[in-house]
């Protein structure tokens, strides 16, 4: 049953990717025309980016104020499901990556310290794959994405309580050179 669902999702991602690439063949200028159609000049469009709408063309991933600055997604205990609040974060990254087909990203999966280490490597990978699937569905090419799991081996926070564990159950989005 799970295998069938996975292949449906992959098929869906392929369909979306095809759709996106035909859109991507338009130039940046055309995209600006589309946004004007929603009702803004270039200046308004720039403001639009500040509140999370509009295109990311020209937006630097180095900018600490950009929506792309959020690079960590957190997970509930024993879960690899991306929370709906985090989907917006991922959508921002997806739009950047879809608009920049040469850009690549590494998805690093992690878990908290409890339980068996190699099983936790599997859990970390499941979380990274969860994020990967969402990005692919949003039009990011699979060649732009790579995943790695560190399980419990690289905690963000060294601690043995709920607070530490919650901060260690995560996927980090890593742009090379950052």
């Amino acid at each position: 049953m799970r295998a069938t669902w996975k292949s449906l999702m992959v098929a869906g991602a392929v369909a979306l990717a095809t759709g996106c690439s035909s859109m991507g063949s338009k130039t940046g200028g055309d995209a600006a025309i589309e946004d004007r159609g929603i009702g803004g000049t270039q200046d308004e469009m720039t403001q639009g980016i500040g509140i999370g709408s509009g295109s990311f063309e020209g937006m630097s991933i180095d900018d600490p104020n950009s929506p792309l600055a959020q690079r960590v997604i957190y997970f509930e205990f024993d879960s690899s499901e991306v929370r709906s609040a985090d989907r917006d974060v991922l959508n921002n990254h997806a739009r950047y990556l879809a608009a920049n087909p040469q850009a690549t990203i590494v998805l690093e999966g992690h878990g908290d310290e409890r339980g068996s280490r190699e099983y936790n490597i599997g859990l970390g990978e499941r979380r990274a794959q969860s994020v990967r699937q969402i990005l692919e569905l949003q039009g990011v090419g699979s060649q732009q994405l790579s995943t790695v799991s560190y399980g419990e081996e690289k905690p963000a926070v060294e601690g043995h309580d709920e607070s530490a564990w919650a901060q260690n159950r995560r996927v980090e989005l890593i742009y090379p050179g950052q």
Partner: protein
Amino acid sequence: MMKFLRAILLAVATSLATLPVQAALTIEISQGVEGAVPIAVVPFGWGAAQALPHDVSAIIGADLQRSGRFAPLPTQDMLSQPTDAAQVNYRDWRVLGVDNLVIGKVEATGPDSYNIRFQLLDVLRGRQVVGMNVSATGAQLRRAAHHIADQIYEALTGERGAFNTRIAYVTATGSGKSKLYEMQVADSDGYGPLSIVRSKQPLMSPTWSPDAQRIAYVSFEKRRAEIYVQDMRTGNRTMAAAFSGINGAPSWSPDGTRLALTLSRDGNPEIYVMRLSDNSLTRITQSPAIDTEPVWSPDGRSLVFTSDRAGGPQLYQVPASGGQAQRLTFEGSYNAGADFSPDGQRLALVHRDAGGRYRIAVYELATRRLQVISDGRFDESPSFAPNGRMLLYASQAANRGVLAGTSVDGRVGQTLKFQQGDVREPAWSPYLPR
């Protein structure tokens, strides 16, 4: 140019030399094990003014105590300290309730050679049980002491001792960017750690070859998981698995020719068996679940592994050539990380109890009975001694990772702490080649 520089930095960051480690493992031996047999190990005679490099009788006493089966008499309680059977007054020992007496003496036979003569005496019958001469260089004195402890243990319990063995484990010191990981090998009493790999990236999952000459392990030095096989004598290593995705949980086959391992190259973690001679792969599991942590049965015919195909991690058994997997564990929602006992009759594993504590348990294959033997809360990585009577596992004490040793029925023998930072993932060696 950048690639070249990076290669040099990687080589420096991951050093492979077998180096003695300054910071040693310290051992705390627990006190007062109920039911342990009283024994007296009398300080061995030694004539010279200069001290021996190692206190042979103290090592023997510590070994016997650590097994959980013996309670050595403190030296200050001894009424006399004979070094030869002719000097023994058996009444001195009967009044103390000591049934077994170990005496001996060490003599120098050359500039760096010694002869250790020991005798195990039955106090009630007033006669020798075992008597032996063991010769050793200064560097071999500890190994000789462990060998003698093995002889005594075997004479009194009927089982083979496992004191003359080694342990591999992982240490982690520092935090953040200064975090340093090491894989070390020490004597099974924690003495004399040697660093066999050092890295700024994680190291995991050491597994010994059956001849104790090689160790396979997982390294993240290239920012992804890869499995290496390293020769213990030369330090040379080869890469065994670097497929895309996970390369993990290596386990050496009993005949030394294959590794069972976990690969996610086909989409999710599955068990494979790799033949070391040609790196050919046989796929063992096929499920959308996480299948990982394979261990070989001692007869080489099956693998036990962790799978969450039923919702949460449980242990399964499958023929080593592949086929239908049978679920083994049904008690509790989390059973993982198995190690097989050397006689193939039981598994040590990580079990999460109803209170959420992660504890070591022993599962009997014939009866399917699970018995929890450690307290938790975060115990993991159990490893059997080659005589199947003792277990090492990873635990936590005062917020640090430590190793704990216990007899298989759960009596605590020892805690091993690294001087700073954490120690974890113990792997007990097989019997060492003679």
